[in-house]
């Protein structure tokens, strides 16, 4: 057990506390309280995302879009218990995948987790489960307003099993990325944001544009709903990032502060550039910037100082502003900008770890370029590339398969009427 913990300590951030081996085998009630609530917070992010996305689509597709996220909460919650957790965190098989030993949570109980020794194993499992829930939900923004519901279900089952679980194992579960390459990803720059955006990219290539894209306006039908979604996301992100400390204490506090600061800085930088370029600062721009800042700091949250997080956030806001504009340049239809926001900021944040990380902040981390260590930046860059290639290829194959079995896209008539009525047989609003 010990042998497995040490090598992955960097990624897992099981802090100095680990050093006191004697203590490490006891559940700590304060750490557990923080992980319980962090897990609840991350769970809330998925419906938060449903509303964030739901407000941005047209009125006829709001329930369909919300269901894209909710189905992950429903389905992946069960999958994770059955086979997702053991594939991701089960006993390592050659650095590639977790073994099937913990299928159905066999052997995963109330005892201290091997990954977070002051917290019950079941709780660590659940915390990680919430990440597996939200990652595929993020992807759905790319093909909103045109994906078949049955296709989405097949796709998600396969994607969580064959893309998310291995990648998660490589980075956090004791696999080769953290062990051999030394990748640092505090809370999911690669595992969550980059991976969902690369999957989105593959999906967009396969599924094509919405009917009338570029000709008809496709405007958000309810921006206050999107603002509400952002509120829940921001709130939940404290669990996501500060919870990734896996303990309650100084490191969680650092991650909390960098998360909040980066989000604020990114929202401001998006607003300022939009104001300068378009003459008006929009609410949608501001909340998009905030998400950019939250996603950007995610891989770095527990490795950098608050001042660095201002820089990381500010740049995340600017880059994602450019990112969403790429859409017009290249003419693809990424409905809700998964690539422009999560792809860009996930990549930026992962590289930023290589620049700003400081071992003084987190002894389980490393120093980055600005603290005199050149190698980490290369490691991070290589990790991004590897993840890109793997996720793209695997997602592409899965989508081909699903397309072949049930078809990815709704019929023209269904798309026209809207997914709410055609796929779900309901109207979101009456009167």
């Amino acid at each position: 057990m010990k042998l497995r913990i040490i090598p992955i300590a960097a990624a897992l951030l099981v802090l100095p506390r680990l050093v006191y081996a004697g203590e490490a085998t006891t559940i700590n009630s304060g750490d557990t309280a923080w992980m319980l609530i962090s897990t609840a917070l991350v769970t809330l992010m998925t419906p938060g995302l449903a509303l964030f996305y739901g407000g941005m689509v047209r009125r006829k597709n709001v329930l369909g879009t919300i269901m894209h996220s909710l189905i992950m909460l429903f389905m992946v919650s069960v999958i994770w218990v059955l086979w997702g957790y053991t594939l991701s965190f089960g006993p390592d098989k050659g650095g590639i995948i977790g073994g099937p030993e913990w299928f159905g949570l066999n052997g995963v109980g109330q005892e201290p987790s091997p990954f977070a020794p002051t917290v019950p194993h079941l709780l660590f499992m659940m915390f990680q489960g919430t990440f597996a829930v939200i990652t595929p939900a993020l992807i759905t923004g790319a093909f909103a307003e045109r994906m078949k519901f049955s296709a989405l279900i097949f796709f998600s089952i396969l994607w969580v099993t064959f893309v998310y679980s291995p990648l998660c194992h490589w980075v956090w579960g004791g696999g080769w990325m953290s062990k051999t390459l030394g990748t640092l990803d505090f809370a999911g720059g690669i595992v969550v944001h980059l991976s969902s955006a690369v999957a989105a990219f593959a999906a967009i290539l396969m599924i094509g544009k919405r009917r009338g894209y570029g000709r008809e306006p496709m405007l958000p039908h309810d921006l206050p709903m999107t603002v509400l979604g952002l509120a829940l996301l921001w709130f939940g992100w404290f669990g996501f990032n500060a919870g990734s400390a896996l303990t309650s204490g100084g490191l969680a506090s650092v991650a909390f502060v960098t998360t909040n600061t980066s989000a604020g800085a990114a929202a401001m930088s998006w607003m300022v550039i939009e104001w300068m370029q378009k003459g008006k600062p929009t609410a949608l721009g501001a909340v998009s910037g905030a998400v950019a800042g939250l996603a950007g700091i995610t891989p770095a949250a527990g490795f950098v100082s608050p001042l660095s997080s201002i820089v990381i956030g500010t740049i995340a806001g600017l880059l994602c502003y450019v990112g969403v504009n790429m859409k017009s340049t290249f003419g693809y239809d990424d409905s809700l900008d998964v690539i422009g926001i999560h792809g860009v900021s996930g990549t930026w944040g992962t590289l930023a770890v290589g620049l700003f990380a400081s071992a003084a902040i987190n002894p389980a981390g490393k120093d980055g370029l600005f603290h005199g260590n050149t190698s980490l930046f290369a490691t991070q860059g290589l990790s991004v590339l590897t993840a890109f290639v793997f996720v793209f290829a695997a997602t592409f194959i899965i989508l081909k398969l699903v397309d072949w079995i049930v078809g990815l896209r709704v019929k023209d008539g269904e798309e026209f009427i809207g997914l709410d009525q055609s796929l779900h047989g309901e109207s979101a609003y009456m009167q």
Partner: protein
Amino acid sequence: MKKIEAIIKPFKLDDVKKALNELGVQGMTVTEVKGFGRQKGHIEFYRGVEYDINFVPKMKIEIVVPDQLAEQTVSVIREKAKTGEIGDGKIFVYPVENIIRIRTGESGEAAI
């Protein structure tokens, strides 16, 4: 009897209504509509993309009046709905063949 239909700027509704009441017009029916005309819409931005919102929200007022009130009604609306700027709207006058009050069954001018 005539039907007077006016497309006006929404914020003028209250003034118009008050003036018509003073004239003795008791009833009217109002609908929210989108107007397209000389007055252009405006630009909106969503994540960097510009959209041309080319309609303008307007209110449609419908009033059926006895022939002798028609002219006055029109001029009251004209006066009260006017800002002098583009987009003030139009007044249309249509013939009405009959009118019936559902509650009493009265018809013709008595029903107004």
